[in-house]
């Protein structure tokens, strides 16, 4: 599910992946609003009955090489700081990947499939500010598409202010102004710009740094994650 207001931005990545599963594009970020995606990659698990058995959480299955990369000497300070924050972003891929496999194999019997009460407790709270932010983002997206980029800006600024922890609203907006015209990929640095008062690095630092950047999956102790569940426990 690509959260991209311009579907063309997602096309090259879908084409490169050549997925055999449904690969969709959510141009209005409606799934973010509905399911609580605050950043990417995040995921929810839905069982055969349409019930969500794991609410939105960070969904990494492979440790990024950026986590272990040495910061080269001589980098501009801002870039070095950015790399330090990226390296500080938690990585739970060694727990999340086996959790997925366990659920695929065992379904409702998997220890990682939450009960409805657990899902509700773990799901992101949505108060008035978060809900208003969603409305503002949707309005901005609509105006960007029907009127022009500038019409979106005031509404997206408002969305950012109302829900500062929603990185999908911010990163989507920033990349549209920081990506150079004619670029083949969206800018990921999302640095200071003349349109928004905010940018990736300064906002990450202000909100607790890389360590606070994700919604970590609640998977229990590391040892528990490597124990078999379901039939394998009795084997």
């Amino acid at each position, binding site marked *: 599910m690509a959260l991209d207001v311009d579907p063309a931005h997602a096309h090259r990545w879908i084409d490169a992946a050549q997925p055999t599963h449904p690969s969709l594009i959510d141009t209005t970020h409606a799934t973010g609003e509905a399911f609580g995606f605050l950043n990417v990659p995040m995921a929810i698990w839905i069982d055969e009955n349409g019930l969500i058995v794991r609410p939105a959480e960070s969904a990494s299955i492979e440790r990024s090489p950026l986590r272990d990369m040495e910061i080269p000497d001589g980098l501009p300070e801002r870039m070095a700081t950015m790399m330090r924050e990226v390296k500080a972003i938690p990585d739970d891929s060694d727990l999340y990947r086996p959790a997925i496999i366990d659920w695929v194999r065992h379904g409702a019997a998997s220890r990682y499939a939450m009960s409805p009460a657990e899902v509700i407790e773990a799901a992101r709270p949505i108060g008035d500010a978060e809900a208003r932010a969603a*409305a503002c983002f949707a309005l901005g997206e*609509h105006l960007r598409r029907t009127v022009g980029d500038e019409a979106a800006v005031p509404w997206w600024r408002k969305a950012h202010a109302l829900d500062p922890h929603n990185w999908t609203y911010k990163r989507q907006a920033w990349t549209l102004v920081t990506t150079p015209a004619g670029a083949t990929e969206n800018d990921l640095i999302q640095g200071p710009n003349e349109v928004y008062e905010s940018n990736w690095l300064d906002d990450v630092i202000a909100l607790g740094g890389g360590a606070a950047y994700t919604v970590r999956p609640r998977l229990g102790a590391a040892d528990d994650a490597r124990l078999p569940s379901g039939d394998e426990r009795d084997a």
Partner: protein
Amino acid sequence: MIVTASSMSATEFADLTGWERKPEGWCRGEICVPMPSGASAGTAGTAGVSGTADMIDVAAVAERLGMPYEVDHTHGVGALGPATVSGRALTDVRAHWPAGLIDRAGDRFDASSLVGRRIIMVAWASW
């Protein structure tokens, strides 16, 4: 959820938001919010929280459901935010599947094709 008029049919509202008007109130899945009776039910030719015929007052219903309603008066368009009555993100897709999802070809995606399957929905982006 984009709104271009101050009133709409209850059916359209349900398609847009997943909230359906039922005898017990406005409902989505197992959650129902009672409707007020009497004056706020609307009069002939007007819509209210309950509505006449199939028409409803969007702002009135949205307020009842705790849905923010932001309006851009310059461009004459508004947007509804999610209902805050439950206080949480959606936990049951049977109640409402987000609208407007498209596939690589730009065609609307039929969510019913996923019924009966185990799904991991992964949100990613080009940014």
